[in-house]
């Protein structure tokens, strides 16, 4: 009984009224736009990033449609360049990086640690407004043509050659970066200072460990991006070189600084998804996680090592062979903690009692895709191979396996897992499973051919290509259609469930964790009484955790 909330003293008799939860405690636009409740802010983020995902996906659809034929005949070259730039910028900064931290992190972190809110609720709301402002600037600029520099903004092209709207887009990204920083700051202080009595570090759910590691990266890496983008803008405005070789600047300096942020950024994207898997696997195998401390430390190790490997994006860029070798060996070492996690998750299934609800299907899909994506990362870390596959579709396939096959599936897993908690409704499980399978197969069909294309040598960012590459491109585009359909399904049935889904009780999955000990949807202050923690996390085997409603 120790993890359960001590029951509140018997209230005075009242007419039977539905208890207020965070959703119905107040109505009206002002109550939402001026809220400081972390749960409402999470919903605000959910709406915003879903919109950004749809926009980024539209850009991707156009790209894949163009690539069905070897000639450039759907859009013009300049438009294509703007499309892939928009796709990258929107997806990276306005979907992948915020998604799990701002939606699930915001919603669940205080509850998981037994707190009433994050450490700085008003700062949390400010984060959302800053995010929206950044998104608005970027979207408005994209509507006016956006940029054609790619999401990587390499000078001297971005500073001296491109005629597109580099500065507004850079400004929008910079603004949204502050949103990331403040969110990370909020999470770190929350985890350090707001834990309920008895919630020691090693009793924390692994989702918290993952988000903590993510937040460290958010705090330390994002400022570097902000500054680098500012320097690009300065160079563009003043015409004076910081990176432009014509003015004795060094374009490689940009690359070093940019990737110093952008490599840890990919761990910002994937660590939260790993945290989700660490919650979902124990729950649906009804077993504690195998190797808790190893998984926890592996998260931190990924965050730390992730800062040391940025040069592996620059193996052919002109850095010295010694630098290349250093970054290569470090890149192999950063893969080890990820491998440790995969092995631990797999071992969690051993002698478990496994159910295959949608969150679990997505989580298993995550492991499959992340394993493949991670292994192909080893190909890229390999100096001799990378020379051949750098800047080809091999790289595109690799990072989409991690980001889409990995991170987005993790996000979908989290969304389905915590949906009953967030909305008080259950989604239709059959549709959930169908969508998971559609996404899984659609994804494989989209991106597996791209590994072959990459080894063939098809370069990135090409809108027309030699005809012998067409078959693989057509397969990829066909897969993309299926993948797109797979993403439309949850949009539809999740929205449907808001009105017609079966009401969910406090703990429909029978999961451990403090967030499941309170109502669905939770009250504004999360708990009637602050809980006290005395047992280890994921204690499925010791306790009969009631599977309620």
């Amino acid at each position, binding site marked *: 009984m120790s993890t359960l909330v001590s029951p509140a003293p018997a209230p005075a008799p009242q007419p039977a009224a539905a208890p207020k939860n965070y959703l119905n405690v107040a109505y009206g636009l002002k109550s939402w736009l001026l809220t400081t409740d972390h749960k409402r802010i999470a919903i605000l983020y959910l709406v915003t990033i879903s919109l950004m995902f749809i926009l980024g996906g539209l850009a991707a659809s156009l790209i894949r449609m163009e690539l069905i034929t070897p000639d450039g005949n759907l859009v013009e070259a300049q438009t294509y360049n703007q499309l892939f730039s928009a796709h990258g910028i929107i997806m990276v900064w306005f979907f992948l990086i915020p998604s799990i931290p701002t939606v699930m992190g915001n919603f669940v972190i205080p509850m998981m640690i037994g707190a009433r809110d994050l450490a700085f*609720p008003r700062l949390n709301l400010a984060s959302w407004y800053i995010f929206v402002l950044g998104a608005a600037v970027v979207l408005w600029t994209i509507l006016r043509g956006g940029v054609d520099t790619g999401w990587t903004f390499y000078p001297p092209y971005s500073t001296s050659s491109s005629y597109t709207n580099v500065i507004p887009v850079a400004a929008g990204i910079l603004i949204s970066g502050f949103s990331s920083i403040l969110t990370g700051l*909020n999470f770190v*202080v*929350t985890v350090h*200072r707001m834990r309920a009595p008895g919630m020691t570090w090693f009793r924390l759910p692994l989702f918290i460990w993952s988000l903590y590691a993510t937040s460290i990266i958010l705090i330390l890496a994002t400022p570097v991006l902000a500054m680098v983008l500012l320097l690009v803008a300065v160079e563009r405005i*003043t015409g004076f070189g910081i990176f432009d070789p014509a*003015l004795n600047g060094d374009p490689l300096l940009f690359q070093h*600084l940019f990737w110093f942020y952008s490599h840890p950024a990919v761990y910002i994207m994937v660590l939260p998804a790993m945290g989700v898997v660490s919650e979902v696997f124990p729950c649906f195998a009804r077993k504690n996680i195998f190797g808790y401390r190893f998984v926890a430390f592996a998260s931190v190790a990924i965050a730390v090592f992730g800062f040391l490997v940025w040069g592996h994006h620059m193996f052919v860029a002109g850095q010295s062979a010694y630098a290349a070798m250093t970054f290569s060996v470090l890149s192999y070492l950063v893969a080890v903690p990820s491998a440790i996690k995969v092995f631990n998750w797999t071992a969690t299934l051993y002698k478990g009692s496994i159910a295959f609800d949608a969150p679990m299907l997505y989580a298993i899909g995550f492991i499959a895709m992340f394993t493949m994506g991670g292994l192909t990362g080893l190909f890229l870390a390999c100096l001799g191979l990378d020379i051949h596959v750098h800047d080809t579709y091999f790289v595109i396939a690799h990072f989409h396996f991690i980001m889409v096959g990995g991170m987005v599936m993790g996000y979908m897993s989290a969304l389905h897992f915590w949906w009953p908690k967030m909305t008080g409704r259950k989604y239709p499980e059959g549709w959930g499973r169908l969508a998971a399978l559609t996404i899984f197969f659609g994804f494989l069909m989209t991106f597996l051919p791209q590994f072959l294309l990459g080894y063939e040598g098809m370069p990135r960012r090409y809108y027309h290509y030699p005809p012998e590459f067409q078959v693989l491109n057509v397969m990829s585009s066909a897969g993309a259609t299926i993948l797109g359909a797979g993403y439309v399904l949850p949009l539809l049935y999740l929205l449907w469930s808001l009105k017609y889904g079966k009401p969910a009780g406090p703990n429909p999955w029978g999961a451990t964790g403090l967030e499941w000990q309170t109502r669905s949807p939770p009250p504004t202050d999360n708990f009637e009484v602050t809980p006290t923690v005395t047992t280890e996390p994921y204690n499925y085997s010791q306790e009969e955790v009631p599977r309620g409603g």
Partner: protein
Amino acid sequence: MEASRTLLAHHFRDLDQQREAQLAGMWIFLATEVLVFGVLFTGYTAYRTIYPEAFAAASQHLNLFIGGINTIVLLSSSLTMVLAVYATRAGRRRMQVACLVLTALLGTLFMVFKAAEYTIDYYDELVPGMKFNQQEWLAQRVNPREVQLFLMFYYIMTGLHALHLSIGIGLIGVQAVLAWRGRFSPANYMPVDLAGLYWHFVDVIWIFLLPLLYLVGTRTSLA
């Protein structure tokens, strides 16, 4: 007047937890600022390593006299800031207000001197794109483009620092007014404490900027 305000935010257990959280938040924010300036320090160091002569030559044209005065001004302002925090915790309202006002004034003095320095730099033809004399540098056998690179870093770094300083001055100014109205007390000292942390950080950045930018190579004159 402020007795009715509860200091404790509803999501915190007690004032201690709240204060610790606020302090942690400010330190983390300062860490992010270190990274921001770190980009500039990294870039500057990279170029200084490849263009040592040009950077040394350019550095010696900066006005170390004003830079030195500004350092004294800023360090003094940090002293007054520390005293303001002390005064707040000790409940000495008049001292508190005086020190906050002095801090803001000293900060503003820094900005005034900085503006003067930029003006002198303009007349010394040290502004790439606006007033810059290529021939003068070529005559000294120094690559003018490398000098311009140095100057870009100089303006960006001191400019960014000045921006942070301005925000600090605004913050301290507002707090001085609030202090005059009796908002802060030994119980409610955290805002001043946090502002102090920020102010000291801005000071520390300047302490790094000065030698890095002004003291490259050996000088023969102060200006």
